[in-house]
């Protein structure tokens, strides 16, 4: 059952649409990640869902209640949600006081408040800081206070706006652990905005791609990351090999695609003569020094143009009649001697390729 549904939702500031025609459905218990670049409209959408802004057009249905209707009860609905903003906002009072605020506003008994606040502070590992003024905390600690403050009211829906943006790696890990634990232990629906796709994949069971104020694609993380519906979504989700091609032959759903004079075999539903984009994820490409016998239908001889170590992985740019980017572990790159100028064979399966019509 949908706990949040938006119907043709739009928001406009001045003449500029920030969001346009958003039709979103979040079911109870979903962890829904809104991914998209900065300025895509993620924060605006979360603010609308939290009823902090009135939409310019369309409606938001919360658990069957039309919040834009004449008899909407904003306070009652809002008290079923919690919102953690990107920039941690803490009140000028103790950490305990900050976390207790939402419960006090709901007129909870003081004994229950104490118990629940301490539970929430234990969860975010800040119980030793309960008497400190929250304004003296670091950014990561303040965000953990904000998360504890949001969770202590046991909301049905938790809205998170880039909860780990601009934080140090340690704080990011701690916050992700708290969120993962909460999602696993509680019956909670989460809608989170993030531009960190790995975070979306790690925490969410559904993903929506928001770009330029439009919801371009929704689906499971696997759907989004393996089968993007457009070139811009593919580029955003990190598919760095995007080739232009034309389907020149078909055998069932196995298509032969001409890419820059080289033929690639891929699973595709498109017909002969169709111009397509060919998406190949870098991690699906295997690099070898000799032409091994593999099950991969596509093997191309090429030469390494550039090898760059980024984090734990080597990013290998090669040219095989068309440009290709592959990622290999540091150890594999060293063992194979993958350096610029080296001749290699690049292999990938027909099923690893995703095509969309141009």
């Amino acid at each position, binding site marked *: 059952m949908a706990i949040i549904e938006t119907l043709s939702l739009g928001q406009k500031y001045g003449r500029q649409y920030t969001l346009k025609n958003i039709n979103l459905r979040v079911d109870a218990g979903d962890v829904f990640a809104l991914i998209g670049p900065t300025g895509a409209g993620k924060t605006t959408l979360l603010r609308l869902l*939290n009823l*902090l802004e009135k939409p310019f057009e369309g409606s938001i249905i919360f658990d069957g209640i039309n919040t834009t209707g004449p008899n909407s009860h904003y*306070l009652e609905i*809002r*008290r079923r*949600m*919690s*919102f953690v*903003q990107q*920039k941690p*906002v803490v*009140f*000028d*009072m103790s950490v305990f006081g900050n976390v207790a*605020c*939402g419960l006090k*506003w*709901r007129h909870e008994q003081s004994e229950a408040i104490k118990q629940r606040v301490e539970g929430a502070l234990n969860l975010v590992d800040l119980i030793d800081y309960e008497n400190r003024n929250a304004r003296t905390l670091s950014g990561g600690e303040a965000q953990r206070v904000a998360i504890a*403050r*949001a969770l202590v*009211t046991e909301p049905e829906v938790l809205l998170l706006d880039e909860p780990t943006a601009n934080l140090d790696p340690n704080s990011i890990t701690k916050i992700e652990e708290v969120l993962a634990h909460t999602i696993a232990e509680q019956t909670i629906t989460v809608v989170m905005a993030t531009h960190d796709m790995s975070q979306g994949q790690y925490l969410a069971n559904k993903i929506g791609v928001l770009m330029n104020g439009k919801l371009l694609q929704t689906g499971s993380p696997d759907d989004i990351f393996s089968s993007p519906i457009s070139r811009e979504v593919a580029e955003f989700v990190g598919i760095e090999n995007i080739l232009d091609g034309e389907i020149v032959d078909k055998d069932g759903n196995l298509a032969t695609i001409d890419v820059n004079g080289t033929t690639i075999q891929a699973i595709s539903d498109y017909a002969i003569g169709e111009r397509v984009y060919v998406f190949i994820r870098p991690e699906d490409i295997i690099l070898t020094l000799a032409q091994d016998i593999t099950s991969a239908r596509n093997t191309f001889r090429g030469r390494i143009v550039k090898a760059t170590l980024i984090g734990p992985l080597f990013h290998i740019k090669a040219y095989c009649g068309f440009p290709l980017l592959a990622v290999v572990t540091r150890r594999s790159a060293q063992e194979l001697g993958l350096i610029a100028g080296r001749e290699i064979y690049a292999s990938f399966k027909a099923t690893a390729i995703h095509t969309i019509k141009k």
Partner: protein
Amino acid sequence: MEELWQALGKAVELLVTFDAEVMEASGRSLAIAATSCSITAFICLPLGSLIHFSRFRGKRLLLNIIQTFYGIPTVAIGLMVFVLFSSSGPLGGLDLMFTPAVMVIGQVILVTPLMLGLTISALNGVDKAITETAVSLGASRFQAAIITLKHARYAVLTAVIMGFSRAFAEVGLALMVGGNIKGATRTLTTAISLETSKGDIELALALGIVLILIALIISLTLNRLQQR
């Protein structure tokens, strides 16, 4: 010059011996200003919050009008209160003319625009994210207003102290509606005015020193608050 030093010496003597007339005028000044300031704060804090948190047409115009009245001459308020409370005025039946009560009423009218405007400015100075965070955590409008006011507490207190200073230092209104009656409505400022015109410079100076000392304490308090 020698006369001035003599006057200063006499003034200090009046102060250190707790001269009854000086103490009485000082006490009355403080009591009237504190009462009017408390009543004004009681009106302006909720009213300022209501104006700050409400969206309505003409809000900017209202704020401009409030700011225009910051420096309204005390004699203008005095005249208005005089007309209202004189025996032939619409509120003459209350028989409040030339009493501390009517002086308090006058000071409330005088100080309200200043305290109201500064309260609204204080609330404007609070990061909007504070109010929004409170609302997003389930605060009602009233609860959100309270936490915003708490975050503006030093600036709001500044507004209250500024209001107190204006009430405490005014003379035109107190003279017009209080009448400067010894033992009843004589305050520091009206007494200084009277004693100067009588030529009792020593007493006027003593009263002036008390006035300046209290103003100094207010100013120091204000500075400390603004540094926080």
